[in-house]
């Protein structure tokens, strides 16, 4: 299973399939353009890595997906089940409606009874089959002593079918089979939309998780390396971490020297030195030299997973959010029951006729049944999340949009969120010409991110590399070489003999000259400045909380235009700050990517994380940015506001229909024709209104 984020057209399908089929050992390959995936069937000898390389060579970005994580069978089956029920109810509704037209247009006597009987024959089995999700949910709610939307639905369906059957047996005038089955159909449509939104978000989130296939290089006692799954590692094992690789476990360095990027874990932008005896944590990235690490904790015991406890505590605070739909249901369900019972009792006292009273009760329940209400929220969320998905934002939670619309305070993390985590050199013009050329030559000899950024910056400024010979990289320290008979070095302050400043910097030493400082600044993530400006323009309070050092954070905040800054924050402090903001009455939107943000993401009213974030951070947040840019955040806030407004409008529309039709029903003037018209037109208006989401 491969992920192909870049494909978009017929040519891509052909290209990918041809490239895969041309690879020896591949039996079958099929691209799914909707999911942007390719399923490949191949001999055992073919690895996913070979295939991704084949595709990269053919010009398509490809990643391996872990099929185990993608096992979506349960959700899939549920979706298919709902679809089947929807199809059956639609079929039954159309047929019953057709038969009802004859009754509405004045069929009498035997013909009307025949129509009613045929309707009953179609509607009763269909209602029993299609309404099952509602009956199950209503029953479990009643067992728990609660009322939910499904209770009036179930009651309306059962009562409508029951009284209609009774009427039919006694050659009555009114039968509500069409209304009962139409109710089922519209409500199932709402359920299905709701399910699809959640399922597609879930599968995309799973895809992100499946992208990280956790593997480690284990060293056996005889020195041979083998690739194993991280789950198979046990404390005491020795693993090798290549430069550029992520450390898979908590452990202690036994051999090798390197530098570690701890940005995702702590928010520090400056790489730290690692040598024998140093403790390392899962999630850190090894930069320069190979490291051998003795495992002290693996899998669920690592620091990465211990953060989960913090997250669980933080999430408990958020669970008491009641969505708009729940608020509506709370008012609605008891109201409907009281109304229909009151109508039935009133008519019984007035006419002393149980049959009329029950008919009226059924009519009231059908008219008030939350057909439009059931569609009001899912239709809007489907429209809005589809819109945002195309802009590159994935919504993981159904109520996330509502919560986002309420947010008035935005808290950003710095490293990896507003910045890309990579640095760029500043003040290159101040370097003497010779120094710049030597620095370029040295920087090209290293794969360290600072060196790569420096090399890119210098060649971009038009410098040519000087003729430096004997280039050697000293892992954990820097690069050394010889230039015009002098030893030249580029690397860490301590190694060069310079005083370490508070900011990110690298140092250059030419022979015995004084060290030259080359300062770095964080690279802004694409769209970061625009998002901050847009959010401020919308009148939101914008804060920056980072685990990085104070000078670095302050300088960055000044550059991007954020006034309120918290630096050197520990993970728990971040969560506390967010909680304190919420307690002060703010609705906090947290945007962060690191492990140190995870608790804060969970504590916030609503949270967003970029796709580059750690798995833990992504699963703690409500929305995930799929692309590199932060720009969709501003769009998302606008869309969330507009969809929240549409949801409210939809509720209003549904209520207005009810207010108009209920007096008719209570007065006993509601014929099956009026019920069908009111129900269909309100559902239609609500769905059309949902499409107006911007």
């Amino acid at each position, binding site marked *: 299973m491969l992920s192909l984020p870049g494909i978009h*057209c017929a040519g891509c*399908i052909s290209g990918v399939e041809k490239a895969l089929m041309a690879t020896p050992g591949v039996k079958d390959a099929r691209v*799914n353009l*909707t999911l942007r995936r390719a399923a490949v069937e191949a001999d055992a000898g073919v690895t996913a890595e070979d295939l991704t390389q084949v595709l990269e060579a053919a010009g398509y970005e490809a990643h391996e997906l872990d099929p185990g994580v993608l096992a979506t069978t349960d959700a899939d089956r549920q979706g298919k089940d709902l679809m089947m029920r929807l*199809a059956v109810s639609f*079929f039954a509704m159309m*047929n019953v409606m057709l038969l009802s037209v004859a009754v509405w247009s004045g069929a009498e006597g035997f*013909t009307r009874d025949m129509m009613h009987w045929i309707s009953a024959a179609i509607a009763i089995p269909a209602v029993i089959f299609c309404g099952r999700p509602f009956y199950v949910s209503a029953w479990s709610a009643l067992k728990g002593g609660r009322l939910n939307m499904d209770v009036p639905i179930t009651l309306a369906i059962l009562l409508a079918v029951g009284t209609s059957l009774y009427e039919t047996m006694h050659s009555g005038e009114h039968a509500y089979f069409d209304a009962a089955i139409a109710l089922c159909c519209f409500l199932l449509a709402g359920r299905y939309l709701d399910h699809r939104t959640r399922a597609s978000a879930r599968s995309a989130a799973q895809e992100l998780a499946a992208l990280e296939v956790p593997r480690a290089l284990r060293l056996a006692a005889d020195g041979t390396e083998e690739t194993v799954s991280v789950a198979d590692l046990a404390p005491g094992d020795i693993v090798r971490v290549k430069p550029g690789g992520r450390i898979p476990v908590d452990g202690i360095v036994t051999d090798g020297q390197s530098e570690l990027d701890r940005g995702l874990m702590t928010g520090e932008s400056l790489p730290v030195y690692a040598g024998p005896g140093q403790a390392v944590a899962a999630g850190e990235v090894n930069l320069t030299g190979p490291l051998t690490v003795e495992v002290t904790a693996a899998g669920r015991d690592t620091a990465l997973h211990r953060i989960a406890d913090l997250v669980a505590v933080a999430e408990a605070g958020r669970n008491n959010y009641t969505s708009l739909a729940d608020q509506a249901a709370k008012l609605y369900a008891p109201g409907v029951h009281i109304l229909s019972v009151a109508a039935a009792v009133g008519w019984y006292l007035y006419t002393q006729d149980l049959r009329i009273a029950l008919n009226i009760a059924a009519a009231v329940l059908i008219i008030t049944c939350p057909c439009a209400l059931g569609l009001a929220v899912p239709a809007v969320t489907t429209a809005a999340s589809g819109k945002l998905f195309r802009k590159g934002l994935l919504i993981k939670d159904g109520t996330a949009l509502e919560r986002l619309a309420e947010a008035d305070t935005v808290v950003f993390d710095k490293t990896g969120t507003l910045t890309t985590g990579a640095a760029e050199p500043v003040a290159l013009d101040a370097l003497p010409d010779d120094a710049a050329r030597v620095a370029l030559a040295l920087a090209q000899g290293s794969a360290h991110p600072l060196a790569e950024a420096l090399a890119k910056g210098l060649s971009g400024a038009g410098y040519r590399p000087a003729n430096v010979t004997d280039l050697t990289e000293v892992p954990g320290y820097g690069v050394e070489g010889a230039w015009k008979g002098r030893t030249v070095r580029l690397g860490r302050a301590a190694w060069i003999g310079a005083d370490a400043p508070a900011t990110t910097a690298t140092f250059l030493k030419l022979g015995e000259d004084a060290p030259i400082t080359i300062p770095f600044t964080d690279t802004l993530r694409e769209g970061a400045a625009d998002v901050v400006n847009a959010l401020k323009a919308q009148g939101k309070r914008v804060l920056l909380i980072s685990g990085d050092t104070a000078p670095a954070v302050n300088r960055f905040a000044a550059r991007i235009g954020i006034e309120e800054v918290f630096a050197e924050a520990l993970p728990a402090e971040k969560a506390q700050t967010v909680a304190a903001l919420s307690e002060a009455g703010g609705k906090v939107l947290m945007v962060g990517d690191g492990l140190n943000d995870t608790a804060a993401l969970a504590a916030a009213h609503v949270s967003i994380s970029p796709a580059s974030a750690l798995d833990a951070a992504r699963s703690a947040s409500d929305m995930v940015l799929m692309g590199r840019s932060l720009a969709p955040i501003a769009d998302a806030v606008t869309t969330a506001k507009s969809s929240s407004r549409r949801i409210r409008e939809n509720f209003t529309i549904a209520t207005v229909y009810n207010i108009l039709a209920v007096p008719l029903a209570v007065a006993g003037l509601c014929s099956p024709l009026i019920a069908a018209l009111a129900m269909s037109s309100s559902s239609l208006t609500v769905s059309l209104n949902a499409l107006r989401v911007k």
Partner: protein
Amino acid sequence: MDVLGILIPVSLFLGLIGLGIFFWMVKRGQFDDPEGDAHRILREDYDDKPKE
């Protein structure tokens, strides 16, 4: 009106056939990749002969 006795069963029967075909299509996975299928029809790979 007697004709209704024939027409209603016939229409129901035809409707059921449609429903059955829909189920068959869902089972066969014909709705799994709507976007891809829309593009696939435009490519020339299998214009001359069907895929084996």
